[in-house]
């Protein structure tokens, strides 16, 4: 028998505009969509910065980029997993600070000065808060945005009550945590001093690998994509919604806890207002990296690239002669730009099948 549907599987000959766009954005479909466009944008931006300040193309810049982006990437990977399922989590930064606070406070309370202890506590508290998110969403079939927004409010309220007047400052933080923020794996000479590769790269790599494994190599990860792609069908196929919700929200929470500990070690301050309002950067990085707000798409590579772009913008606008105040403008702009391109691609794809849903 001849192969089925052979003739209709190739996209129709399209105009030069759509062909160019397809080239620009890659034909990777749902999974790798927009990755090459993003890599191209990063490259163009790096060249722009390098033209203004040739010093930028150096190992030092790269090490600095990793240092400032590591913690944010860790939390973004958790947000990715939730977004793949078709949900959204906006409680992650509040969760991060709460977890870090509990870890620091317990360390002081028991007089334990151990990074391992702090890590276990922070990740555990983060995962617990995430599990509560997942459970509430499952039990009451609530919209994920509302649930996690409420959770953000609750956590911030609790933090203000317990911690508002007295942030934990550097001198009162365990030494192991302060060291965690400054330790390096190796150092290279730079000018008069040295610059090193932060130990943050270890949690970063672990988080990236485990997220990739979760999403691509486990049944629950594939169920997460299925749920984001077509929730009704996923439930009909017997996907256990409670299990998936608990796993993905706890996972996102655990990464938030880890990120919180990294942040407070870095800035040496546990203060409820430290991270507040920066959710935009993380969500932008994930969406710029190709995750769909409606679920079913998104990848670890995308998040790594998206966060690279966001961190680059955050770190280098000054270099190209703009004040740091432009950060939000550019990140908001990049978010809208990339989201529009991916919407336009979906529209072209639908038009070929005469589907005018999102015209």
């Amino acid at each position, binding site marked *: 028998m001849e192969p089925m549907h052979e003739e209709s599987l190739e996209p129709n000959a399209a105009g030069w505009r759509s062909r160019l766009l397809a080239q620009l954005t890659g034909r990777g479909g749902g999974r790798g969509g927009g990755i090459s466009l993003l890599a191209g944008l990063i490259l163009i931006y790096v060249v722009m910065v390098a033209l203004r300040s040739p010093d930028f193309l150096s190992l030092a810049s790269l090490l600095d980029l990793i240092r400032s982006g590591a913690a944010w990437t860790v939390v973004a990977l958790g947000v990715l997993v939730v977004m793949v399922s078709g949900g959204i989590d906006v409680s992650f930064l509040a969760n991060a600070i709460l977890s870090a606070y509990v870890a620091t406070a317990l360390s002081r309370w028991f007089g334990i000065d151990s990074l391992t202890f702090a890590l276990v506590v922070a990740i555990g508290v983060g995962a617990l808060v995430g599990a509560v998110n997942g459970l509430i969403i499952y039990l009451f079939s609530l919209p994920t945005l509302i649930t996690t927004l409420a959770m953000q409010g609750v956590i911030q309220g609790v933090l203000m009550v317990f911690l508002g007047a007295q942030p934990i400052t550097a001198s009162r933080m365990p030494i192991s945590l302060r060291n965690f923020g400054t330790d390096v794996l190796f150092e290279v000479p730079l000018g008069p001093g040295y610059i090193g590769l932060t130990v943050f790269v270890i949690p970063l790599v672990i988080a990236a690998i485990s997220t990739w494994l979760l999403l691509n*190599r486990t*049944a629950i990860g594939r169920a997460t994509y299925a749920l984001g792609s077509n929730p009704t069908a996923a439930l009909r196929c*017997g996907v256990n919604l409670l299990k998936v919700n608990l796993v993905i929200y706890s996972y996102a929470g655990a990464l938030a806890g880890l990120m919180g500990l990294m942040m407070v070690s870095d800035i040496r301050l546990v203060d409820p207002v430290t991270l507040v309002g920066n959710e935009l950067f993380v969500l932008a990085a994930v969406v710029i990296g190709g995750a769909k707000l409606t679920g*079913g798409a998104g990848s670890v590579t995308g998040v790594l690239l998206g966060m690279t772009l966001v961190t680059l913008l955050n770190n280098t606008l000054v270099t190209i002669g703009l004040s740091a105040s432009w950060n939000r403008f550019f990140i908001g702009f990049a978010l809208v730009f990339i989201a529009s391109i991916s919407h336009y691609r979906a529209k072209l794809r639908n038009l070929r099948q005469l589907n*005018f849903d999102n015209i």
Partner: protein
Amino acid sequence: MAELLRLEGLSKRYIGTQALDGVDLAIAAGEVLCLAGANGSGKSTLMKCIAGAEAPDSGKIIWEGRAFNRLKPADSMRLGIEIIYQDLSVFSDLSVAENIAFHVIQARHRAWVDWGAVRKVAAEALRELGASLPLDARLGDLPIGARQTAAIARALTQDCRLLVMDEPTTALPSRDVARLLDMVRRLKMKGIAVLFVSHKLDELFAVADRFAVLRDGRKIGDYAPAELTIERLGLLMTGIAVKGEKAPVEFDVTAKPLLSVEGLSRGGQYHDISFALRPGEIIGFAGLTGAGRTEIALSLFGLNPPDAGRLALDGREVRFGSPLEAVKAGIVLVSEDRHSQGLFARRAIRTNIASSVYERQKDRFGLVFGGAERRIAERWVERVRVKTPSVDEPAQSLSGGNQQKVVLAKWLATDPRILILDNPTVGIDVGSKMEIHDIMRELARQGRGVIVISDDLDELVISCNRVFLIEAGAIAGEFSGPDLTVERLSGRLRQVV
């Protein structure tokens, strides 16, 4: 053949309706049974009882001699019953291979995914079906026929003994129907029982061993295909005789054309389309799905702009940049997929009907209150005979046929001069179908122009003055008067296939 499933005296009552009333039904291994019934006849409820999604109030479900009062979804899956719903329940964002092997990936004892095994399972299931699909393609990028194939292949990866397919041919282009029938024959040879649940059954005559007809929750009887014709089946389903007679409306052939189309072309879709539509005329577009019929209609409606050619309304050249301009000029398009493109399912019938004419609902301060909406809706509900207790009911509470009438009414409220109807009677019962044909003729009598795209040749023959055969994006034939018969049209279509 060994009996696989027997339903005995199955009854189910919902508030206000007796959905199933003592239905007996049996299906043997390797048998292809078509369960026919109009909308609201109880076939969905029956299917849900088999799937385990609903519990019958009384009666027995007997699987290979074992009697159950009800099945739970898990029981049904364990017994080897696989249901393919009309929406196919596939995952657009996932690859073909993953869609097919989804159950294997999600099997209870497995935590890790072995992608090599996934591909192997998918390839094997496709081989059993005699089908081939690109395993790594994103399923959402493939046409509907390919998605259906993937859904059937997925069912095969389980130990499928009974495959239930809900409305399998309704959304399928005709050439894919042949492929579907091919696959069903293979399933049959493997001893798998296939239960088609549908109201569009003429395509299934070729493969069915037996028809069972449901009407108003009761089984009317079992029939061999040989003792049935499409007309008789329609009569059994609805209790109304289908009059398949030609009844075109007379119109003035010398009148000035309402719409003239000259050399309309769009790269890769259709080319050099020319025709004139006169007041009171009904023109039909026959042809295969993908031949360009829908594409042409969309271009007339201001979507899918043509590359070349001209459109003239009353002799004046027009160019539509958007559907809004087309509607303002008096052209409306009733699209085939009323669920996603024509109906606000959860909103009240009145809101649906009046949604096309907000301008007319404004009072002198430019504000819209409910009164005008209700008046407009009530008038139209009466004129197109929507069966509903009130215009306040949500549109989704109506049967498919009445939903389609609401969509029609919505567009008729704009007082269009030209109506383009894309498969206006797909998925609705025979009774409603005839009523929609009556509405079309009534519109023509009022001097409006109508263009009907349809896969139902009968529908075209009985209501059109002229039918164009669209083939590979061009008008390949014109049929009218004594030439316009189902035999002639289907003869030409077969040559194309």
